[in-house]
């Protein structure tokens, strides 16, 4: 007889408001990042998809190299590279239908371009002649978001609105490992799960938030585990395995479209380049680490698979390289043209109708510009 039984009628009961909640087990990510290339799962992968991914990855790598070169030529103010992360960038764009929406962070111009946005318009922010160079409604791509994770609640709201309207639309939102520490990451995931909004969150864990490694960012078992706390599934994937990223994101998009709610996907990848051209990565990481990741390169992983299966030969590789070169040449040519600037644009689109103070200030600038124009011929005489 236990002590409690000896004491008679007292029986412990759970607190009245307590109810057994969702079983967390199905939400938990796998112990290891999901992989396709080089595994048995690869046999099931669609050869046409693998070839498409390959062409896009080669093109994406060349895009990163070209954009970085443009910073050195002064044609871009800054470029945050995704060299080494092309599999995530490309897959994020390819898994979406035309009616879906992409919510990129500032590092994701490659995904934006892969979605169909004109590369010059995608790079406008980084060239510095305007903020958002493209029409967000043309390809359903939200503006590149510099404040970290702040675009995630937008994705949730848009997906929620689409669902309220009965539209079959999914939003895919991109964020980095550093961004997962922001409050907006937490709030977005919480809202998405409560509303069962059709959203896919793709976290590219590239190892660093500028210089700070993941260990200083979180003590969670993995970033994918964070999903469980919100009541949504977390998936862990090898971010350099393009076939795996494509499959996991496709599953998540399908799940969301079918009304299953949001998914958090953590893709393990690596930022091979520095944070931007203005950063010096040697101050916080060693060459050996970078070299190890170069051995796990997304293009090489895919190339090995395609070659082993006889889906890619030298001619195929050359064709991919040629297409990438043509894209780069075209980008170079367009970016080497000076953007047309109109200082009066400063006052365009502040409000639907300008306020009186903005009208006054606009006239002030106009007068300054006229005075400048009148002064210019005089300056010319000194040349």
């Amino acid at each position: 007889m236990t002590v409690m039984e000896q004491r008679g009628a007292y029986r412990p009961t759970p607190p009245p408001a307590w109810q057994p909640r969702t079983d967390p087990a199905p939400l938990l990510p796998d112990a290891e990042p999901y992989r396709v290339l080089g595994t048995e799962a690869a046999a099931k992968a669609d050869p046409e998809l693998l070839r498409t991914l390959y062409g896009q990855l080669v093109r994406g790598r060349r895009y990163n190299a070209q954009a970085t070169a443009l910073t050195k030529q002064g044609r871009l103010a800054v470029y945050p590279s995704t060299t080494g992360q092309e599999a995530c960038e490309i897959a994020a764009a390819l898994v979406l239908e035309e009616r879906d929406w992409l919510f990129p962070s500032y590092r994701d111009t490659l995904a934006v371009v892969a979605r169909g946005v004109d590369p010059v318009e995608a790079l406008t922010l980084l060239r510095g002649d305007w903020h958002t160079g493209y029409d967000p409604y043309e390809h359903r791509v939200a503006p590149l978001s510099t404040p970290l994770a702040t675009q995630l609640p937008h994705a949730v709201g848009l997906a929620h609105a689409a669902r309220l309207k009965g539209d079959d639309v999914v939003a895919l939102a991109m964020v980095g490992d550093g961004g997962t520490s922001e409050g907006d990451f937490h709030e977005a995931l919480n809202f998405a799960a409560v509303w069962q909004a059709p959203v896919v969150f793709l976290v590219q864990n590239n190892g660093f938030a500028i210089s700070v490694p993941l260990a200083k960012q979180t003590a969670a078992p993995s970033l994918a585990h964070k999903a469980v706390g919100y009541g949504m599934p977390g998936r862990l994937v090898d971010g350099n395995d393009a076939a795996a990223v494509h499959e996991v994101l496709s599953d998540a998009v399908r799940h969301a479209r079918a009304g299953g709610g949001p998914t958090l996907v953590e893709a393990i990848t690596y930022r091979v380049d520095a944070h931007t051209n203005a950063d010096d990565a040697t101050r916080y990481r060693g060459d050996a680490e970078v070299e190890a990741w170069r051995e796990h390169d997304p293009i090489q992983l895919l190339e090995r698979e395609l070659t082993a299966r006889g889906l890619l030969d030298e001619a195929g590789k050359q064709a991919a390289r040629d297409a990438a070169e043509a894209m780069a040449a075209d980008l170079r040519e367009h970016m080497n043209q000076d953007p047309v600037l109109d200082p009066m644009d400063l006052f365009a689109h502040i409000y639907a109708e300008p306020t009186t103070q903005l009208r006054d200030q606009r006239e002030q600038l106009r007068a300054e510009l006229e005075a400048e124009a009148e002064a210019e011929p005089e300056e010319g005489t000194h040349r």
Partner: protein
Amino acid sequence: MTTVAVKPATMAQALTRALRDAMAADPAVHVMGEDVGTLGGVFRVTDGLAKEFGEDRCTDTPLAEAGILGTAVGMAMYGLRPVVEMQFDAFAYPAFEQLISHVSRMRNRTRGRMPLPITIRVPYGGGIGGVEHHSDSSEAYYMATPGLHVVTPATVSDAYGLLRAAIASDDPVVFLEPKRLYWSKDSWNPEDPAPVEPIGRAVVRRPGRSATLITYGPSVPVCMEAAEAARAEGWDLEVVDLRSLVPFDDETVVASVRRTGRAVVVHESGSFGGPGGEIAARVTERCFHHLEAPVLRVAGFDVPYPPPMLERHHLPGVDRILDAVGRLQWEAES
């Protein structure tokens, strides 16, 4: 013209009616925030809306202001017209990054392609005995952010008209609701509300010849009271209710001050870096040769909002206003 029996209504009731009419007129209008559904909001401004329009149109959100405004941005991107309730002035601060980095500038950064028609309702100001973090006057923060409209009603009728105008606006509007006026009553006919004017016009609440009190929101009734009291001193004060801080109606303000030659700006917000500095500068720049005295400010002190048992010493009252009016260099006239 038929005469309709007009019953007194409170400002809170007029706001509720404005939300209801806006929701009935346009299915894109969605109300969202903390406790706005079943409870009807802590000030009951959203009372009955969830019942009438369903919880998809009037939604109790998770308790996170950045998430509320951030998701409202996404909803607006998709063609909805969210009306967000921030429960109290100081509870809106977590949403500042969304407000400043996205809401205020989305139209500009997308070259006009992505305007965000979001109304952000914020109960503000003191005088209701609220404990810490429930009585801030936060308008200066909003005014300092380009791309936002900032409006605040002082009468029951304006509460209806301004809120309808805010929801109809294609720009984001910070709609500041003076908490202590929620229960103020006014003869106002909800069946025949005044026509909804576009945002941006001040109004002369009381004509006068001696000096102009420039004010808004919760300080308007205080200034009206001061103007009545001033008659005993021989001053005939004009009271201008700004109604809209952004855009600012220079025309009405300047016309008034040019008439009276003297001006005092009155608000609860702190004086240093507060709206009064901007208003005084604008008036001085435009009315210098009409002014008989420097433009004075009567404001809350530059202290964190005081505990409720001390707030009466902080809030601009009739005596402080009359004291300022008395310092408008009247001796020069005699």
